[in-house]
Every structure is written in C-alpha cells, then in structure tokens.
C-alpha cells in the first residue's frame, strides 16, 4: 500500500531523451570507450602541463649520461644527446594532439561543406566535386604530404595542412553520401515546401542528421593523422628538431635500438596506447550514435 502510494505520488515526468543524451548513456556503458576517454583526458592534462612544466627542459642536452637507461632522476632514461626522454615525451604529446585534433578540425571544415553541397545539389556540382575527390585519392598520400612540406616548409601548421590535403576526401565522401540519402527524406521536401533557404536546409536540417557518422569519422581520423605525422617525422620531414615528436623520437631510437632500446620503446608505447584509445573511443561513439543499436 505504502509503496503504491509512493509510486503514485511520484510526478510523472516525460523523459526528455534526445539523440545525444541517449548516445551519452550508451557511451558510458562501454567500458573500453570509458577507459579510453579517461586516458585521453589524462593525455590532454599532460600536454597542458608540459606547457608550463616538464621535469627538465626538453631541449637541454647533456643532462644525463647519453643513452642511459631509466633511473630515479630520469624515469624514462636519456637519449643520444643526454636529453630527458620523459620531458620530450610530454612535449611530444602536445605535438600529437595538436596535429590529430587540428587536422580533423580542418578536415571537417573542408570535407563536410563540400560533401554536403555535392550530395544535396547533385548534377554538375556533384560531378565536379567527385572528380576532384577522386583526383586527390589518386595521388599517393606520402608523396603529396612530402611535396607540400618541402614547398611550404616544415612547420607544425604546414604539416597539418599537408595531412589535411591527403585526408579530407574520406570526410567529403561520407558527408556526400549522407546528404544524398537525407535529401530524399520527406522532412527535406517539407522544409522546402515551407520556404526554407538551401543554406538553412543543408546546415540546419541535413547536417544535424548526419552529425553522428561525421563525429565518428572525425574521431577515428585523429589517430590516423597522429600516425601520419609520426610517420612523416620518422622519415625526417615532420616536426623539426629540437621540437620532439613521438615519430622523430622513435626514429632516433631505432638507430640505437641494440644498446638503448628504451629510446624506441617509450615513444612507441605512448603512440600505440594513444592510437588505441582514440580508436576505442571512435568505435564506442559509433555504437552509441548508431540508431540501430538503440536499446
């Protein structure tokens, strides 16, 4: 009796479950995605901390015996110039995050509008844009990135631009495909019958419906960009010394792998764990935002 009365006394509040709160609830239930998020938050914290404090100055040479292994003073050891690897790893996290996130923001800014426009207008616009996309797909990405870095000069901004030039097409294709299907939906016709302008239709109605897959793609694009930067730096056309990048640190380490394996192990593990975390988060987001997996 008492419980029945208590239940009845509860105000009946309709659940304001939007797509996003639903997705958030599902994401929290995904253990891998959750752990990854915690790790990535930690990484962001480390990168921010490195702006103001590192155990040692990352470019200071001769701090320790060169090639010396981990010790109490230098937790991850020292490199071929006797620089503190932990300090360099922390600064490297900045580079990786800036490259990863910066690249994807630019990819979003370029790929999404182009793709939406191509898919929504179809016809000649679509033919031209699809042609451009295919041309970019045809150029080997490492070659294009290296040429761009050579032309523009090897700064962090230019590396980001070079990576965007090789990575924007996937996002454009995704946005185009979304626009192609969404434009046939009745609410688009209804919107046009209500006199909505094309810009409003595209960014106010079609884009919000395509946001799920776009966010997933952007998240999964971050590790790809980080890896690409590491690869470019490994080849020597990435971030220039003395700024450390996990890629260039691994490169330096490989040359001494026989007697100082810690030099290659530290950046490699940082890179792998970060890539994995972004991928788990991306997968988690995909499951959370997929309407078919709604429970």
């Amino acid at each position, binding site marked *: 009796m008492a419980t029945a009365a208590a239940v009845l006394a509860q105000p009946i509040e309709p659940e304001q479950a*939007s797509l996003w709160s639903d997705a958030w609830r599902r994401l929290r239930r995904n253990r891998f995605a959750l752990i990854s998020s915690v790790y990535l938050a930690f990484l962001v914290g480390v990168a921010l901390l490195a702006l103001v404090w590192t155990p040692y100055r990352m470019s200071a040479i001769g701090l320790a015996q060169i090639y010396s292994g981990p010790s109490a003073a230098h937790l991850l050891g020292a490199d071929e110039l006797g620089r503190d690897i932990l300090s360099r790893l922390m600064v490297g996290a900045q580079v990786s995050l800036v490259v990863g996130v910066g690249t994807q923001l630019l990819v979003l800014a370029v790929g999404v509008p182009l793709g939406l426009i191509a898919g929504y207008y179809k016809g000649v616009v679509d033919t031209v844009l699809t042609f451009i996309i295919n041309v970019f797909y045809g150029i080997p990405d490492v070659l294009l990135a290296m040429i761009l870095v050579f032309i523009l000069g090897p700064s962090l901004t230019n590396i980001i631009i070079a990576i965007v030039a090789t990575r924007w097409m996937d996002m454009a294709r995704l946005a185009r495909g979304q626009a192609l299907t969404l434009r046939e939906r009745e609410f688009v016709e*209804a*919107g046009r*019958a209500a*006199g909505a302008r094309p810009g409003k239709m595209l960014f106010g109605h079609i884009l919000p*419906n395509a946001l799920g897959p776009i966010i997933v793609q952007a998240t999964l694009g971050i590790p790809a960009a980080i890896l690409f930067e590491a690869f470019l730096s490994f080849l020597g056309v990435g971030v220039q010394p003395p700024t450390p990048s996990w890629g260039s640190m691994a490169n330096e380490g490989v040359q001494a792998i026989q007697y100082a394996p810690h030099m290659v192990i530290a950046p490699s593990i940082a890179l792998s764990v970060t890539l994995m975390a972004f991928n788990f988060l991306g997968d988690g987001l995909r499951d959370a935002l997929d309407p078919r997996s709604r429970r």
Partner: protein
Amino acid sequence: MASPILSVRNLRTQFKTDAGIVRAVDDVSFDLFPGESLGIVGESGSGKSITALSILRLVPEPGKIVSGDIRFRNDDLMKMSDEEIRDVRGKDIAMIFQDPQSSLNPVIKTGYQIDEAMLAHKNATPSQARARTIELLKKVRIPAPERRVKDFPHQLSGGMRQRAMIAMGLANSPSILIADEPTTALDVTVQAQILELLADLNHELGTAIIMITHNMGVVAGLCTRVIVMYAGQIVEQGPVDQIFEQPQHPYTWSLLRSIPRVDALRHERLRSIEGIAPDLLRPPSGCRFHPRCPFRIEKCFTDEPHLEEVKPDQVAACWVTMDRARAEMGADDLVDIRPGAGSGVHPGEMR
C-alpha cells in the same frame, strides 16, 4: 462567384526516364476559390500529388513542368525567380504531407521547427515566433503546448505529429493549404479528428484547402468541390454532393462503388476496379480508362474525350456518361456513402 485565388491552366508535368517520357500530369486545368475546400481524388499514380507539387514548383528530379500557367492571385508562379517562389512556399501556399513521422526533422525540437516556418519568411522575431507556435499548437488542439514545443518529434504520437505539421502549415496564415493525403498514415479515429480539425480551420480562418486523397470518404467529409483524376488527367469535376449522387464518369462511379461498407450484406463481395492502373509511358489510346471501363463503346478505343459540361457546374470527360450507362446498359445505382446519407443498403438487394 469571386475570382479564383489559384488558377491552373494546361499544366503538363513529365518525367524523363530511360524507358521514355512519363506524362504524370497531362493537360490539367482547374481553379481554386478563396476559402474553398477542393478535393483531388485518384488512384496511386493518377498525378494528383505531382499536380500539387507542381503548384509549388517542387517536382522531384527528373520531373519537369513542361508547360502550363499557374496563377496565384495575379502572380504567375511559373515565371517567378527561385527566390520569389521560395517566399510563396509556406507563406502564401503551405503544404502538409502524408507521413508526419518523416515530415518532421527527427533531431530538431518540434517547437523550433514551427518557429522556423515563420523565421524563414522573416515574419517574426524568435520570441514572437515561439509565442505564436504555442498559440498554433493550442489551435490544433495539442494539450500542454508549452511543454510539447520542447519535445522531439519521436516523443509525439502520430496524430500529434500531424497536428504539429498542420500548425506549421498555418504558421504564416497562408491563403492556401495543400494537404497531400494527410490522414493516410494515421489510424481511423485519429483520421477523423484531423479531418474535423481541417474543416474547422477552413471555416474559422478562411484558408482555402486542396485535399489530395484516394479516399472518397475524406472528400465527402471535408470538401465542397471535387476533381477526379485518372492517368494524369482530370476526368470529372463538380460539386461534391452532385458527384456523389450522380457521377457521370464511369471511373468516378467505380471509385464510389468500391468503397467497402460496414452495412453491406454479408455475401456481398468487395468490389474493385478491374484491371490495373495504366502505364503512363504508353497510355491507352482514346479514352485512357477504356481498358477498365465496363461501359465502353467503340469510340472510346480511338477518340479521346474532353471535359464537357454534363450537369450544371459538373464536367466529365466521357463519351458515354453514367446517365446513359444507367438507362441503356443496366448500371446499378450507387449507394450514398456520405455521412448521414440514407440506409446504405441497395434497394435491389433487400430480401
């Protein structure tokens, strides 16, 4: 009679496909008068929806309006720039669609979508729009509108969604509301409520309504005048009462006869119209209905009939007409399906 608010003349809308040209709307002319409610009936593929979309120049690809003249008041809609016609859409002529589930954007709050209808035409500031949205939702009888504006479409029932769509259609007080099968996706009790709402709004606000439907019952309940379309053409047109009592085109007659009735005798089979809807790529010669017409004569195979006055205010495109079919060919009388009309039992079948 007052001058028409909308007048369509010789409208032809065609779809170019790989198989050939589909003449979806083929020489259609009609008028709509202020405050009137006009029904356009026909089977799927008769061209009724494309006629409506043509009025707003929203024919989907690869369709194209090839010729015709569409006048709204004194403006030629066909000659307007894209910007001008966009301003007519939703402001002077609004349209509501069949499926309220998919006509609302699933990721945007319902209230904001109605606000937007006003904001698109710069008819209001955001706060004025919100106030009017709540007022409109009240008018279409949605309970607790202040709460409902914050709901996403999936949180509303089907009937409520269609009410929200109607509210959106009315947002800018249009002079014409085109309703394309607005009740088809709803269950029967909700259908009746929506129709009643549309009828009230028609009387109250004086909004002219074009009701596109395949359901003769809907026309009977709401409209004063009806246009019957078949294979992209108008085959009969006239006042609803007259058409229901004395349809002159055999197609109209067949449509009325095929409505299932609750009080039909149990052994009676459902009547359907024999044959299939015509292939609009290769429409039949002569009268397009002749392959399915029970009263065809030789002339129907070769000569195309044109709309002619068969009764005062009533036109039909038929060489025979039902008056003659009834007198000479033994066509049976119709049962009046209008609400409240007669007992509904065939006199000949009372036993």
